[in-house]
Protein backbone atom coordinates (compact mmCIF):
# COMPACT_ATOMS: atom_id res chain seq x y z
CA UNK A 1 0.00 0.00 0.00
CA UNK A 2 1.33 3.38 -0.93
CA UNK A 3 -0.37 5.09 2.00
CA UNK A 4 -2.01 4.11 5.23
CA UNK A 5 -5.51 5.11 6.21
CA UNK A 6 -7.18 5.38 9.57
CA UNK A 7 -9.52 2.76 10.98
CA UNK A 8 -12.95 3.64 12.24
CA UNK A 9 -16.39 2.06 12.59
CA UNK A 10 -19.91 2.90 13.71
CA UNK A 11 -18.95 2.16 17.32
CA UNK A 12 -16.35 4.95 17.18
CA UNK A 13 -18.99 7.57 16.47
CA UNK A 14 -21.01 9.33 19.18
CA UNK A 15 -23.73 11.74 18.06
CA UNK A 16 -25.72 13.87 20.50
CA UNK A 17 -22.99 13.24 23.05
CA UNK A 18 -24.06 14.51 26.47
CA UNK A 19 -20.54 14.79 27.89
CA UNK A 20 -20.08 17.96 29.92
CA UNK A 21 -16.33 18.47 29.76
CA UNK A 22 -13.30 17.93 27.52
CA UNK A 23 -12.04 15.23 29.90
CA UNK A 24 -15.34 13.37 29.78
CA UNK A 25 -15.51 13.35 25.96
CA UNK A 26 -11.92 12.21 25.60
CA UNK A 27 -12.33 9.47 28.21
CA UNK A 28 -15.45 8.13 26.48
CA UNK A 29 -13.87 8.05 23.04
CA UNK A 30 -10.78 6.35 24.50
CA UNK A 31 -12.93 3.65 26.14
CA UNK A 32 -14.56 2.94 22.77
CA UNK A 33 -11.14 2.72 21.10
CA UNK A 34 -9.99 0.28 23.75
CA UNK A 35 -13.07 -1.90 23.20
CA UNK A 36 -12.08 -2.08 19.51
CA UNK A 37 -8.48 -2.95 20.50
CA UNK A 38 -7.18 0.12 18.67
CA UNK A 39 -5.34 1.17 21.85
CA UNK A 40 -4.08 -0.30 25.10
CA UNK A 41 -4.81 0.95 28.59
CA UNK A 42 -2.09 3.63 28.72
CA UNK A 43 -3.59 5.55 25.78
CA UNK A 44 -6.37 7.23 27.77
CA UNK A 45 -4.08 8.33 30.57
CA UNK A 46 -1.49 9.73 28.14
CA UNK A 47 -3.94 11.59 25.92
CA UNK A 48 -5.65 13.21 28.93
CA UNK A 49 -2.28 14.24 30.31
CA UNK A 50 -1.37 15.73 27.01
CA UNK A 51 -4.63 17.63 26.63
CA UNK A 52 -3.90 19.35 29.92
CA UNK A 53 -0.42 20.37 28.93
CA UNK A 54 -0.96 20.93 25.20
CA UNK A 55 -4.67 21.47 24.60
CA UNK A 56 -6.13 20.81 21.16
CA UNK A 57 -9.06 23.22 20.79
CA UNK A 58 -8.90 24.95 17.40
CA UNK A 59 -10.76 28.11 16.45
CA UNK A 60 -11.30 26.88 12.90
CA UNK A 61 -14.24 28.06 10.73
CA UNK A 62 -16.33 25.68 12.82
CA UNK A 63 -14.53 25.27 16.17
CA UNK A 64 -13.18 21.76 16.78
CA UNK A 65 -10.88 19.87 19.11
CA UNK A 66 -8.45 17.22 17.92
CA UNK A 67 -6.95 15.22 20.80
CA UNK A 68 -4.31 12.86 19.36
CA UNK A 69 -1.30 10.91 20.50
CA UNK A 70 0.73 7.84 19.59
CA UNK A 71 1.51 6.41 23.06
CA UNK A 72 -0.48 3.23 23.56
CA UNK A 73 -1.90 3.22 20.05
CA UNK A 74 -1.97 -0.26 18.46
CA UNK A 75 -3.54 0.66 15.13
CA UNK A 76 -4.12 4.11 13.71
CA UNK A 77 -7.73 5.22 14.01
CA UNK A 78 -10.01 8.17 14.39
CA UNK A 79 -13.23 8.66 16.27
CA UNK A 80 -15.74 11.47 16.39
CA UNK A 81 -18.17 12.91 18.92
CA UNK A 82 -20.73 15.63 18.19
CA UNK A 83 -22.77 17.66 20.68
CA UNK A 84 -25.82 19.87 20.70
CA UNK A 85 -24.48 21.74 23.70
CA UNK A 86 -20.91 22.88 22.96
CA UNK A 87 -18.13 21.59 25.20
CA UNK A 88 -15.29 23.85 26.29
CA UNK A 89 -11.71 23.03 25.24
CA UNK A 90 -8.60 25.08 25.87
CA UNK A 91 -7.03 26.57 22.75
CA UNK A 92 -4.02 24.94 21.09
CA UNK A 93 -2.44 28.33 20.43
CA UNK A 94 -2.18 28.98 24.16
CA UNK A 95 -4.48 31.99 24.09
CA UNK A 96 -6.81 32.34 27.05
CA UNK A 97 -9.79 32.12 24.75
CA UNK A 98 -11.75 28.92 25.30
CA UNK A 99 -12.90 27.03 22.24
CA UNK A 100 -16.58 26.05 22.43
CA UNK A 101 -16.81 23.07 20.15
CA UNK A 102 -19.60 20.87 18.82
CA UNK A 103 -17.23 18.33 17.25
CA UNK A 104 -14.30 16.40 18.65
CA UNK A 105 -12.09 14.28 16.40
CA UNK A 106 -9.91 11.95 18.45
CA UNK A 107 -6.97 10.23 16.77
CA UNK A 108 -4.49 7.53 17.58
CA UNK A 109 -1.54 7.55 15.20
CA UNK A 110 1.07 4.78 15.26
CA UNK A 111 3.59 6.39 12.93
CA UNK A 112 2.94 9.85 11.49
CA UNK A 113 5.51 9.44 8.71
CA UNK A 114 3.26 6.82 7.09
CA UNK A 115 0.14 8.85 7.63
CA UNK A 116 1.04 12.23 6.18
CA UNK A 117 -1.54 12.01 3.40
CA UNK A 118 -4.45 11.17 5.67
CA UNK A 119 -3.49 13.84 8.22
CA UNK A 120 -3.37 16.33 5.40
CA UNK A 121 -6.77 15.19 4.21
CA UNK A 122 -8.18 15.81 7.68
CA UNK A 123 -6.59 19.24 7.82
CA UNK A 124 -8.50 20.09 4.62
CA UNK A 125 -11.74 18.93 6.23
CA UNK A 126 -11.00 21.09 9.29
CA UNK A 127 -11.02 24.10 6.94
CA UNK A 128 -14.29 23.11 5.29
CA UNK A 129 -17.25 24.79 6.95
CA UNK A 130 -19.83 22.85 4.96
CA UNK A 131 -18.41 19.43 5.83
CA UNK A 132 -17.98 20.24 9.51
CA UNK A 133 -21.51 21.60 9.79
CA UNK A 134 -22.89 18.51 8.09
CA UNK A 135 -21.15 16.27 10.64
CA UNK A 136 -22.82 18.20 13.44
CA UNK A 137 -26.25 18.00 11.84
CA UNK A 138 -26.28 14.27 10.97
CA UNK A 139 -27.64 12.54 14.07
CA UNK A 140 -27.83 9.01 12.65
CA UNK A 141 -24.52 7.20 13.14
CA UNK A 142 -24.85 5.07 9.99
CA UNK A 143 -25.51 8.16 7.90
CA UNK A 144 -22.62 10.02 9.51
CA UNK A 145 -20.31 7.08 8.78
CA UNK A 146 -21.50 7.12 5.14
CA UNK A 147 -20.79 10.85 4.92
CA UNK A 148 -17.30 10.37 6.42
CA UNK A 149 -16.63 7.58 3.90
CA UNK A 150 -17.65 9.89 1.11
CA UNK A 151 -15.43 12.75 2.34
CA UNK A 152 -12.39 10.68 3.32
CA UNK A 153 -12.54 8.18 0.45
CA UNK A 154 -9.66 5.68 0.68
CA UNK A 155 -8.25 7.32 3.78
CA UNK A 156 -10.82 5.58 5.93
CA UNK A 157 -10.47 1.88 6.71
CA UNK A 158 -13.62 0.14 7.85
Amino acid at each position, binding site marked *: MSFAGLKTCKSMIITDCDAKSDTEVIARLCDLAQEQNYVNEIFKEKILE*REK*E*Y*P*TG*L*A*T*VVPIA*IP*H*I*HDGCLSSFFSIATFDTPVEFS*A*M*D*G*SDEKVMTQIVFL*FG*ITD*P*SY*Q*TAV*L*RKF*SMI*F*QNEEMLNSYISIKDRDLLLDKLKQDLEDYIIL
Partner: protein
Amino acid sequence: MKSCVNIVVACGGGIFTTTVVTEKIQEILKKEKIGFNISPHKITEVPNITGADLIVVTGKTSETNKAGAPVMLGLPLFTGVGAEEFTAQLLAKIREIMSKS
Protein backbone atom coordinates in the same frame (compact mmCIF):
# COMPACT_ATOMS: atom_id res chain seq x y z
CA MET B 1 23.93 35.52 2.05
CA LYS B 2 22.81 32.12 3.23
CA SER B 3 21.78 29.63 0.56
CA CYS B 4 19.63 27.52 2.80
CA VAL B 5 17.42 28.13 5.82
CA ASN B 6 17.21 25.66 8.70
CA ILE B 7 13.67 25.40 10.04
CA VAL B 8 12.36 23.40 12.95
CA VAL B 9 8.64 22.70 13.28
CA ALA B 10 7.46 21.77 16.75
CA CYS B 11 4.15 20.80 18.31
CA GLY B 12 2.99 19.26 21.56
CA GLY B 13 3.24 15.66 20.48
CA GLY B 14 5.29 16.00 17.30
CA ILE B 15 2.60 14.22 15.31
CA PHE B 16 -0.39 15.78 13.68
CA THR B 17 0.04 19.51 13.30
CA THR B 18 3.81 19.18 12.82
CA THR B 19 3.29 16.76 9.94
CA VAL B 20 0.79 19.01 8.16
CA VAL B 21 2.57 22.31 8.85
CA THR B 22 5.92 20.86 7.73
CA GLU B 23 4.38 19.92 4.39
CA LYS B 24 2.83 23.35 3.97
CA ILE B 25 6.14 25.10 4.66
CA GLN B 26 7.94 22.80 2.22
CA GLU B 27 5.39 23.73 -0.44
CA ILE B 28 5.72 27.46 0.23
CA LEU B 29 9.53 27.41 0.12
CA LYS B 30 9.72 25.23 -2.99
CA LYS B 31 7.40 27.64 -4.76
CA GLU B 32 9.60 30.56 -3.71
CA LYS B 33 12.73 28.58 -4.71
CA ILE B 34 14.24 28.99 -1.26
CA GLY B 35 16.63 26.24 -0.12
CA PHE B 36 15.73 24.69 3.22
CA ASN B 37 16.24 21.96 5.76
CA ILE B 38 13.24 21.19 7.89
CA SER B 39 12.94 18.89 10.86
CA PRO B 40 10.18 17.96 13.34
CA HIS B 41 10.59 18.37 17.07
CA LYS B 42 8.48 18.52 20.20
CA ILE B 43 7.66 21.86 21.81
CA THR B 44 9.43 20.80 24.99
CA GLU B 45 12.68 20.72 23.00
CA VAL B 46 12.35 24.35 21.79
CA PRO B 47 14.69 25.98 24.38
CA ASN B 48 17.54 23.59 23.64
CA ILE B 49 17.42 23.25 19.86
CA THR B 50 20.69 24.29 18.25
CA GLY B 51 21.47 25.15 14.64
CA ALA B 52 17.97 26.35 13.74
CA ASP B 53 17.46 29.66 11.92
CA LEU B 54 13.75 29.68 12.67
CA ILE B 55 11.39 27.67 14.84
CA VAL B 56 7.72 27.36 13.92
CA VAL B 57 5.52 26.03 16.72
CA THR B 58 1.90 24.92 16.46
CA GLY B 59 1.05 24.92 20.13
CA LYS B 60 1.32 27.14 23.11
CA THR B 61 4.77 27.93 24.39
CA SER B 62 6.24 30.79 26.32
CA GLU B 63 9.71 29.34 25.81
CA THR B 64 12.39 31.02 23.80
CA ASN B 65 15.27 29.31 22.06
CA LYS B 66 18.50 29.60 24.04
CA ALA B 67 20.53 29.67 20.82
CA GLY B 68 18.51 32.71 19.71
CA ALA B 69 16.37 31.34 16.87
CA PRO B 70 13.11 33.29 16.49
CA VAL B 71 9.91 31.38 17.36
CA MET B 72 6.73 31.86 15.29
CA LEU B 73 3.25 30.42 15.91
CA GLY B 74 2.39 28.56 12.70
CA LEU B 75 -1.09 27.33 13.56
CA PRO B 76 -2.67 29.33 10.68
CA LEU B 77 -1.06 26.90 8.24
CA PHE B 78 -2.98 24.11 9.95
CA THR B 79 -6.35 25.79 10.45
CA GLY B 80 -6.32 27.90 7.29
CA VAL B 81 -7.52 30.85 9.38
CA GLY B 82 -5.04 33.66 8.68
CA ALA B 83 -2.87 31.40 6.49
CA GLU B 84 -2.12 34.06 3.86
CA GLU B 85 -1.00 36.61 6.42
CA PHE B 86 1.14 34.02 8.15
CA THR B 87 2.74 32.93 4.87
CA ALA B 88 3.68 36.57 4.15
CA GLN B 89 5.17 36.98 7.64
CA LEU B 90 7.03 33.68 7.34
CA LEU B 91 8.59 34.62 3.99
CA ALA B 92 9.55 38.08 5.27
CA LYS B 93 11.24 36.50 8.28
CA ILE B 94 13.07 33.91 6.17
CA ARG B 95 14.29 36.56 3.71
CA GLU B 96 15.54 38.64 6.64
CA ILE B 97 17.38 35.60 8.03
CA MET B 98 18.88 34.73 4.66
CA SER B 99 20.08 38.24 3.92
CA LYS B 100 22.33 38.05 6.98
CA SER B 101 25.66 36.46 6.23
